[in-house]
């Protein structure tokens, strides 16, 4: 017996979680573009963002007695700044030296290690248990033709798209954004333009963690939050970045949504125990047959 309504319902909720994967994967792309390195602690950056957001929001809420939606909006700039600082710290502590000495293993080990440290730190500050993140929007689902959509799910999709669009606008329109694009294209030539490319790499780490922190406060109201929030999400987003391609902005959105939907479908029709399997299988398939990702360009044409 096949219930079409349920299928649509699963797809719709898969889209919102998929957008989260997409945004975090987009963060992986940002550092890869400028430095060919990845922050394997992206998931922990997301978790820290969500926990910092929780604390800031409850502080704002309790001190001034401000309603939740407003407290949520007021919290955002703090979390974004927090994310940037955290990302810059990761670059400074773990990546800069490895880039200088051209050590491949260096940044991999360092970003993984920093991720673990951040997780331990979070466990000590916020405890090991999961807890609910205050939902700024109504808990009641909107009904559209029998499909239930949470207001927060709508906000996730819009927020994710808005953030990626904002970064894209920065890259296209501002002189500093163009410097980022130039650094990604040819770091030596960018240096000749007078661009401090080491700073651009730091900036890309800051933006990458900002993205993750933002994703953290977007997703937390519909899931639970806690020090364990990041690990699974970080790995999923990494799979998305590989599946979609480390160079394709469209790729991570499509890859994220694809993975979000397959997660939900497997969880419902097969077993929640196998929920993570299809995505990882897809990851393995892409790695063996199209390592540049489904949407990745192999190389830019040189004349």
């Amino acid at each position, binding site marked *: 017996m096949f219930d079409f309504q349920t299928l649509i319902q699963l797809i719709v909720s898969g889209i919102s979680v998929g957008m989260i994967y997409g945004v975090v994967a987009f963060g992986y792309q940002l550092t890869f573009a400028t430095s060919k390195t990845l922050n394997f602690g992206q998931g922990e950056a997301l978790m820290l963002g969500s926990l910092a957001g929780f604390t800031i929001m409850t502080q704002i809420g309790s001190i001034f007695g401000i309603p939740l939606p407003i407290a949520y909006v007021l919290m955002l700039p703090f979390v974004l700044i927090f994310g940037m600082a955290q990302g810059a710290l990761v670059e400074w502590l773990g990546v800069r030296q490895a880039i200088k000495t051209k050590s491949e293993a260096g940044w991999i080990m360092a970003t993984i290690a920093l991720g673990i440290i951040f997780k331990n730190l979070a466990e000590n500050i916020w405890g090991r248990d999961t807890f609910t993140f205050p939902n700024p929007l109504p808990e009641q689902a909107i009904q559209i033709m029998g499909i239930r959509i949470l207001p927060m799910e709508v906000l996730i999709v819009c927020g994710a798209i808005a953030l990626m669009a904002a970064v894209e606008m920065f890259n296209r329109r501002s*002189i500093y954004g*163009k410097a980022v*694009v*130039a650094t990604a294209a*040819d770091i030596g030539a*960018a*240096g*000749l*333009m007078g661009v401090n490319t080491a700073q651009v790499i730091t900036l890309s780490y800051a933006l990458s963690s900002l993205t993750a922190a933002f994703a953290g406060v977007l997703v937390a109201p519909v899931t639970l939050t806690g020090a364990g929030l990041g690990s699974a999400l970080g790995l999923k987003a990494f799979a998305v970045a590989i599946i979609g391609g480390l160079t394709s902005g469209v790729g991570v959105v499509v890859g994220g949504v694809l993975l979000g939907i397959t997660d939900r479908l497997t969880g419902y029709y097969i077993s929640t125990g196998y929920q993570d399997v299809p995505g990882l299988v897809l990851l393995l398939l892409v790695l063996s047959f199209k390592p540049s990702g489904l949407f990745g360009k192999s190389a830019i*044409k040189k004349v």
Partner: protein
Amino acid sequence: MLTVENLVAGYGKVRVLQGISLDVQQGQLVTLIGSNGAGKTTTLRALSGMIKPDFGSIRIGGADITGLSSHEITRKGVAHSPEGRRVFPVLSVEDNLVMGAFTRLTGSRPKGDVKADLARMFDLFPRLAERRLQLAGTLSGGEQQMLAMARALMLNPEVLLLDEPSMGLAPKLVEEVFSTISRLKAAKVTMLLVEQFAAAALEVADYGYVLENGRIAASGPAERLKNDPAVKAAYLGAAH
């Protein structure tokens, strides 16, 4: 303007430049010629900070720039149009030029009139004007070469380093490149030109240096080098 003394540089443990000295006066066009692998590109890379010198000193207008990073050297007014053009393929022609003016737009060099300079570049290289919004990666080799030169000029440089601007171009385009260089010279742009077409380079230059195996083998006013029998035999033969 640019003074290099006893410069030693290379890649890792490989020393390419064995101690070279050269001088580029303000408003002069100086050319550096030599066979493949002599170290011409390496010299320009060391001057613009793309590689760090092991020894020696580089000064620009009296300021010591030895050992600075390339972005710091650029901020002192050294523009480098590198070997292989290295335009930004994913940026438009115009954005490539804007990147040439990055230091001016971000306050580390006097701003001047960037818009007017853009217009000037499009006058100097009309082909680029037609392709203003096209991605640089889709330009032909010759067009990319013009873009690389124009991008370097957007710095309003104290000195312009040109690495084989004629490389890989059809004869007609080579002529065009040299006539552009003459026009820049007439406009009093200080230049250090590396060229494979030694005869043509000595024709436009004021002064020349001949590089051999990382050493300066000969130098002098271009007029004199052109007629030097040894230089003639080695660099101005039928092959050049």
